[in-house]
């Protein structure tokens, strides 16, 4: 007698929890032979709203952690992902990847996480400056996390697109809400499980599945979102996003998926503000009129 396989219930990830969408809606995901792979949550704007609350709550803690600590946590994500490599390869394959491509995608994702883990305590030095002002002041500029970032990640890639959109954002101390690929959503939920077991505080990364066509305007208009990263090609959505973004002068960054998969500290910098601090410098020297 053959054993009946246990099917996985794919849920969304908000504030470190795995709820179903509050809307109760779903969409069926089918495999190559039209077999049902999963009933995937069709997240609503209310799910997005809840996710933003979780992200905002987590922001103060995450952004004030040391770069070193964030680096350790990103490295831990890579470790956990490496350990579940086979599961991701299998998931990628049932979503249409060849074995070779699936294996490569997982390896690239792990390597990218390791790459950003190393940046966590280094990009600050790269993008900071001590500014030689002409008055008696000490003046320096440092990058600082922008806040809550909403991300619409690549449609084509199930895992690498997701990882490459999240990693630079959280490396820089931001928290985020990510919309996963609509057609290839499975890895995103499994990746949430990886995050959940990697010391990433709840709320730092929140992952929704669903339709960009429904959600992008909320990603763009929400007044408590500081920046939006868009990794798809839909011109109409981009225009719509940019129009909505002006409500709170949201920063919008659009990239093609291939732009981000290679990794770059400049992608970290995008979601940073530059803060400049001034302080007077007392100048009392010996042997002259110091004051």
């Amino acid at each position, binding site marked *: 007698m053959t054993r009946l396989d246990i099917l996985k219930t794919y849920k969304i990830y908000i504030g470190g929890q795995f709820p179903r969408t509050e809307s109760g809606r779903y969409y069926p995901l089918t495999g190559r032979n039209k077999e049902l792979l999963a009933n995937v949550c069709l997240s609503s704007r209310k799910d997005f709203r809840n996710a933003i609350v979780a992200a905002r709550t987590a922001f103060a803690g995450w952004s004030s952690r040391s770069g070193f600590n964030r680096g350790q946590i990103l490295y831990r994500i890579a470790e956990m992902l490496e350990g579940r490599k086979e599961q991701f390869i299998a998931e990628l394959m049932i979503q249409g990847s060849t074995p070779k491509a699936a294996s490569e995608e997982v390896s690239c994702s792990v390597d990218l996480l390791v790459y950003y883990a190393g940046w966590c305590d280094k990009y600050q030095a790269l993008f900071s400056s001590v500014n030689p002002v002409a008055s008696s002041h000490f003046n320096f500029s440092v990058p600082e996390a922008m806040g809550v970032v909403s991300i619409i990640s690549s449609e084509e890639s199930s895992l690498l697109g997701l990882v490459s959109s999240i990693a630079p954002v959280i490396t820089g101390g931001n928290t985020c809400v990510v919309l996963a690929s609509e057609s290839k959503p499975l890895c995103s939920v499994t990746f949430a499980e990886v995050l959940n077991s990697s010391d990433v505080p709840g709320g730092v990364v929140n992952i929704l599945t669903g339709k960009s066509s429904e959600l992008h305007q909320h990603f763009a208009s929400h007044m408590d979102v500081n920046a939006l990263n868009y990794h798809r090609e839909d011109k109409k959505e981009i225009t719509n996003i940019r129009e909505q973004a002006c409500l709170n002068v949201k920063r919008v960054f659009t990239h093609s998926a291939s732009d981000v998969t290679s990794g770059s500290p400049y992608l970290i910098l995008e979601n940073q503000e530059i803060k400049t601090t001034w302080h007077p410098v*007392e100048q009392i020297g010996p042997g002259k*009129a110091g*004051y």
Partner: protein
Amino acid sequence: MTQDRKKIVFHHYESTSFSEPGNANKLFFPFYCLNSLVRNSFTFAYSTNQMTTFKIPDFTKSPTIDQVGIEERVARFNTRSIKKESKVKGLKLILNMIDLTTLEGKDTEGKVKQMCYKAMHLHDILPDLPTVAAVCVYPPMVRAAKQALLNSKVKVASVATAFPSGQSTRQVKLLDTRYAVEEGADEIDMVISRGEYLKGNYNFVFDEIAAVKQACGPARLKVIFETGELSTLDNIRRISDLAMYAGADFIKTSTGKISPAATMPVTLVMLEAIRDFYFTTGKMIGMKPAGGISTAKSGLQYLVMLRETLGNDWLSNEWFRFGASSLANDVLMQLVKEKTGVYQSKDYFSAD
């Protein structure tokens, strides 16, 4: 409760030296509460009919000063443009605020008499000129100065207390002070013990000033900090507070023997201390920057600073003095230039 200041009988002074800062208020209690039995308080009899009681603060908690901020404020005073009638009025005010000074080892009665004549006759060709406020001399010159200035309003100020270093015993300093007062000095310019101050021995310095104040009797007391030796503006603010509570009538920057002497930032810190003291106690204290102020332009900048920090009530020689020897002639040259429109030469102004 009123009491004539002159009639207060001071107890014999006993030196107290305590290492804990902040205890000044308690430790001085037995000595100062002659008139008031309120603990932690100090009674000032600053005119015959007024008396105010207030707490002596912990001087280690004096306000902090940001040097760069002070310099920016000074720079802004210096952008004021003083022209025409306000310039003439200001220049005359400066003349009237000068303590014409000679403090040299080689001073003689003859030199002092010449300077006293200049003090009363700044530039007789120019009508409506005031006299200077005072002459400032060493104690042995006081009598000669006093005689030379008979029938004038010019006061005689004498340095005392082992000027300029202040390195002597308290007994000598008090004798020095009493001698100058007996010789006829209207004002005493004392120096503080900078070494004791920098050691943190604030009680010693407080005692010292209070004791000299008593020895002054009716003479007004100017307390010289020698700010050039105190290094930081925080120190200058703290000693200003301490000196005013200890009984200074005037606070003064420098002896003129140490560089830097008076500077505008230092003077501003002291003026702000005077202002805060006024609002705490109601008592007006005078200010005397000394040394290094030699041009009319610089004098006007000090006046602007005074006017915009303490207001017009301080704009007289009762509350502000310049300790200077060469300032007067530069001011006179400017006054003549304002009158004639012609730039002047030193050869036309008497040097005494």
